[in-house]
């Protein structure tokens, strides 16, 4: 493990900063069967552990405001870049199972004691699966808009469904055909921030600019997101969101689910009404009416307060 030096934290001259954002205290890596995962820690090494998981197409440094708030309350907050994301290695293959396995290896590299889990979006769903798989290693679970409930295709006529699937499939396979040669489009720091803003329309431009300096690298022809260009939004497969919901009642760890009240492109649009029949005993669901998908980024203080109450 490497302590972060002042040189790491200083960044480039004129690099954007963001109010409340703090560079991780320690950087290290975990070897997932030959694939290097970048791991970040905030807080004292002897403190109780929170394992914190980001969502798809995000990276751990999107927790630069939220994680220090948790660490300041006396936790060792450990997060990692999912394979192909942020500073982790680009993998040849990506799957749900592989992400769950990577999560377990990061946990294993941290402690054998039970830990708290907090996941956002896909990270919430990954950690929920980890909690169901390894109940003995989990104290409490917080899922931030990470409980899926919507189907890719709402009910449509059968022939229409076939056409929709055909477009998905051909688009995905065409992408695979090109994937060996894909590179991300370069741009100025502001270009990248604005592009990300299309998927994160509720987040301030200053925050998005800050993310570019962490989630992108500066090549001679401009900034490029580090995320593997082989990864692609959408996709298809046999997965059904309701399978996730059907498992929730069996969770042993106390659950806090946070939902945003405002729809936006990356949101999962799950409502408390949809969740209610599936909640395990004692679970609590809180809806932030004025927030979208990135509740912990839009409202870090209220989310931290709620989470800390729940964990204590």
């Amino acid at each position, binding site marked *: 493990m490497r302590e972060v030096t002042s040189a790491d934290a200083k960044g480039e001259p004129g690099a954007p900063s963001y109010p409340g954002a703090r560079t991780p205290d320690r950087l290290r890596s975990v070897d997932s069967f030959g694939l290097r995962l970048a791991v970040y820690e905030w807080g004292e090494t002897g403190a109780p552990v929170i394992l914190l998981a980001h969502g798809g197409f995000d990276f751990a440094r999107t927790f630069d405001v939220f994680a220090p708030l948790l660490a300041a309350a006396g936790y060792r907050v450990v997060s990692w870049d999912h394979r192909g994301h942020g500073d982790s290695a680009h993998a040849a293959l990506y799957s749900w199972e592989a992400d769950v396995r990577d999560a377990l290896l990061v946990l294993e590299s941290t402690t054998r004691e039970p830990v708290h889990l907090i996941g956002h979006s896909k990270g919430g769903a990954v950690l929920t699966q980890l909690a169901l798989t*390894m109940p003995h290693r989990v104290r409490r679970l917080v899922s931030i808009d990470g409980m899926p409930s919507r189907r890719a295709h709402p009910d449509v006529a059968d022939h229409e469904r*076939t056409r929709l699937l*055909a477009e998905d*499939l051909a688009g995905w*396979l065409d992408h*695979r*055909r090109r994937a060996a040669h894909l590179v991300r489009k370069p741009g100025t720091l502001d270009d990248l921030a604005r592009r990300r803003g299309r998927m994160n329309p509720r987040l301030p431009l200053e925050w998005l600019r800050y993310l570019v300096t962490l989630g992108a690298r500066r090549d001679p022809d401009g900034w490029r997101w580090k995320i593997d260009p082989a990864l692609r939004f959408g996709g298809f497969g046999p997965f*059904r969101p309701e399978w996730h919901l059907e498992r929730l009642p069996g969770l042993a760890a106390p659950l806090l689910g946070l939902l945003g009240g405002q729809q936006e492109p990356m949101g999962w649009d799950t409502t408390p009404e949809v969740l209610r029949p599936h909640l395990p005993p004692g679970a609590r669901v809180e809806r932030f009416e004025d927030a979208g998908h990135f509740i912990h980024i839009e409202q870090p203080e209220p989310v931290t307060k709620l989470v800390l109450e729940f964990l204590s």
Partner: protein
Amino acid sequence: MRLQHAKVELALHALRKGSGRPLLLLHGLGERSPDAVPESASPWPGPVFALDFTGHGRSSVPASGGYTAEILMGDADAALTQLEAATLLGRGLGAYVALLLAGARPRQVRGAILCDGPGLAGGGDRPGTPHVALPAPGSSPPDPFVLVELARDVRPPDYATSFVRQANQLAGLPHPVCVCARERPDWLRAVVAEPGVESAPLPEALALYADES
């Protein structure tokens, strides 16, 4: 012949040269392409090719797993790009992949023949108890990860039949899928029940698509 599928290099073997539409063999879970045209496929009148899936045979073995049947469909699509059009003959897992590709590339796949073989069943119609897939000890190829990850991937019957329906609607063949397999997991039983799906022994299946022009 080497093909590139994203970061993976695939081996496509020409088992028999010739003219006409090729037959593309897709092996089962943990298997590899045969060295010569298997006797059962020898009645095929045209050229015969065989693909090693990612992590199998002479294709590259990536680090750290992450296999899905859909990724292997991408492997088979890379071979299809090379061959332009083909009839698919899949064993086990390769049969499931052949079905997926028949639905995904209905104009290039001129019939998919689904045979018994390792990995035909998959993990059932819905997920079992959640688990973390860790590789069994063993040297690769085959990649120990593929043996564990594609031994229990979920194959809902209505997911499988959506590929049949797509082939039916877009392939322009009277029988875009022919099932030879005697093992009938739920997904395959549902496939067999769809219109346009033929059930026949392999010689008849080969004849069905050999005659199609």
